[in-house]
């Protein structure tokens, strides 16, 4: 069970409601786990409050186009007709938000929110809005654990078997950063995620959806290579005296290159999906602001161009700008930092405590502990 990250929340409301305002950015930054991946910890009172504020704002925007959110033929004031529309909305939207079909008791509970709103003589739209707010604050939406209230957990020896809807959800959050679409939910409803072949087929379908899959694949690689978070790509900056070609335009270009390269390996019909390609392809995605770092002179403007790079110098993601520039200092290379990431995150090695007789690495104008890489304070100094 895991709470949605800020990105997953944003992607989810975009997919469910077409709301691309990235409302979850108002939440505190997600904690990271040991591997560098976003991993939210327990909800504080502030977050409970912000979840409420966000849900209210999102619902307020959504009910402005009620016809799109919850199509309804009933005339205003036709309570029976509007009730039926509300139930239909709860069943349909609830299934997509909770990533599994709702049980009758859950529909009744949510309809209760609609009903008590109407009994206060508030209108249909307000009722739908409050149902939507209840859904967006429910643990069934906020936490990834798609098991219906009365479902028995399927034991398989010492393990618990995932429900088909948990399989669907894991697949779509991994490849889209959001919950399943209707087709994937249908497959789960019909028990069509039972074999590896069925899962692979759905996975390939999800990876074929350009925008969503590219975003999620980029997110994954940025977290995996420890390029997100403090002192990551977003804060990247270089000394103009030591790195004369640096401009601030390079910062977004470097991030865009990583995302485009990862997507080129894994997303779309041309992608071969091979780890070898990720680790060895001498390819860059270059804009004018990043061209000098690859000794290229023929790339102009802000349109990203796919370029074959010098094979003597470049091989895959570890020789592209994102990894090299983040795991470095502002004035130059830093083999120890890069080695630490490779050793810990790729080779799963552990770093021991720094022996007492190792002198700190010194760099002009920098104090010692910034560069002692054996402690986790490496980046923090």
């Amino acid at each position, binding site marked *: 069970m895991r709470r949605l990250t800020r990105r997953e929340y944003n992607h989810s409301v975009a997919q469910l409601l077409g709301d691309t305002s990235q409302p979850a950015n108002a939440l505190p930054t997600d904690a990271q786990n040991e591997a560098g991946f976003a991993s939210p910890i*327990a909800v504080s009172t502030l977050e409970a409050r912000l979840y409420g504020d966000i849900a209210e704002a999102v619902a307020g925007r959504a009910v402005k186009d009620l016809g799109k959110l919850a199509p309804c033929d009933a005339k205003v004031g036709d309570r029976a007709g509007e009730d039926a529309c509300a139930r239909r909305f709860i069943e349909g939207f609830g299934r997509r938000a909770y990533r599994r079909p709702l049980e009758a008791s859950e529909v009744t509970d949510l309809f209760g929110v609609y009903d008590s709103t109407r009994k*206060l003589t508030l209108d249909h739209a307000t009722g739908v809005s409050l149902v939507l707010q209840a859904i967006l604050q429910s643990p069934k939406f906020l936490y990834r654990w798609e098991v219906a209230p009365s479902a028995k957990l399927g034991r398989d020896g010492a393990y618990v078997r995932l429900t088909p809807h948990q399989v669907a959800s894991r697949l779509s959050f991994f490849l889209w950063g959001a919950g399943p679409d209707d087709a994937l939910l249908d497959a789960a409803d019909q028990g069509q995620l039972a074999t590896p072949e069925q899962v692979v087929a759905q996975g390939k379908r999800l990876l074929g959806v350009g925008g969503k899959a590219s975003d999620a694949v980029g997110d994954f690689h940025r977290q995996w290579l420890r390029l997100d978070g403090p002192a990551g790509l977003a804060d990247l900056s270089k000394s103009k005296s030591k790195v004369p070609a640096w401009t601030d335009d390079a910062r977004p270009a470097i991030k865009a290159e990583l995302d485009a390269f990862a997507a080129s390996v894994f997303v779309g019909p041309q992608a071969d999906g091979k780890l070898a390609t990720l680790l060895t392809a001498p390819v860059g995605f270059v804009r004018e602001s990043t061209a000098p770092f690859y000794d290229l002179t023929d790339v102009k403007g802000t349109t990203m161009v796919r370029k074959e790079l010098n094979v003597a110098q470049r091989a895959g993601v570890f020789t592209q700008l994102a990894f090299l520039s983040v795991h470095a200092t502002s004035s130059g290379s830093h083999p120890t930092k890069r080695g630490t990431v490779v050793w810990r995150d790729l080779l799963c090695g552990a770093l021991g*405590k720094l022996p007492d007789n190792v002198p700190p690495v010194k760099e002009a104008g920098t104090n010692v502990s910034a560069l002692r890489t054996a402690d986790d304070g490496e980046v923090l*100094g």
Partner: protein
Amino acid sequence: MKALMSTHKPINPDHKPKYCRRTLLRALGLGPGLLPVLTTDFAYAGCLAKPPKRAIFVVWTNGVQEWAQGSGPSFTLPGYMKSLEPHKADLLPLAGVKLQTLKDTPNPQKADNVGHGATPALLTGKKYKELRPFVEIGGGPSIDSFIANDLLKRGIKTPRSSLALGVMQEGYLALWRDSGQPNRPDNDPYRVFADVFAGNMGTAPDPQIDKLRMARKSMLDLVKRDLDAFKKRVGRENGARIDAHLTSVRELEKNLDAGGAQVGAGCAVPAIGNKVDVKNTRNFHTLTKAQFDIAAAAIAADVTRVVAIQMGNEGDNHVVPTWLGIEPTGKGGGLGDENSHHSIAHRGGDNKRKIDGWFFEQFAHLIDKLRTDKEGTGNVLDNTVCLFANHMQNGGSHSIDNIPWLLAGKCGGYFKTNDNVKVSNVPHTQVLKEILLAMGVPSTGFFEDPYDQDLP
């Protein structure tokens, strides 16, 4: 510790409801025409005849360049702490305190000088629950939550049991409701102000708004029922996290129900000025002042008896002190810009003194506010203890020995201030215990072995 202690007076809360709506309205920029529509429910008024004890905790980062010298009442403050000079009689700078709980947390990968990582354990009586890069988890409640909880258990009700305020806080957290349960400070003083001081101000009685409030209540009831049912299904460890979520929703409801407090006659509602961007570090100074003013006003008016403020994050990589005329250079690396608070702290020197001096000015401002508010035969500061807690000795060494901890206020006569207290190698937990004793809060459950010890 006898050195810190004066006499121990019992807590004797005496709430006298008073009204001071005009002050409140002035602060909100509203006309007195709105007076009749204010709710007639009163919150506890400040300016009490027999004032209660209160505690304020301020967490800040990157150590100091120099610290109080000499011993006893004749101690001297270095030049950049001069803003505190007028308050010397109310100060108790400590020397020789160390972060023992961090030293004792098993962690083979971590050198023992990582001050930044000390943040989550700083205000707790326990070792870390877990050591993880960037998000060390507090092993127990921080002292602010512990005190607030004790007051609740004793039936002492204020509109808020505690306030957690932040100034661009992110990253390592110092405030914990309990083990693994964050108590995230609100970085938005304008939201805090509206919640705490003006929550019950409607423009006119509006049946539509009342109906919405009731509908929202039924919606939140379902959210709570969902959380409760979910928690029972997901196993013990996950269940504890869902339970924390449920507690947070309940706490939120309680805060919303409490509405905005009204402030007693003679107590000032802070004027926090026009809203500025709470995520822009150029506003760090403005935001700090707003949060400190809210803290002082909330304490003076007995809106709450416990306030915790976390300033910046564990290293302030993101904070360039532009308000001191220090501009970003656009260069930098793992410590943020070359002129970030963190980078400057690593180098030390005059700019570091300048920044330290700014922090001490803010502390002096808070102390001054508390001293200005009279209550009983003295002032609010006399009945309050403030702890200004940094987590490392200085920005170069990152040592967690000799951390600069400053106490201010007598807390109802408990602390004998105007003294530079030199102790030798004393765990910070013993100082926290003194604060619990001063507040009349039993320490049972706050500390794990062997930290429930008195100062020598």
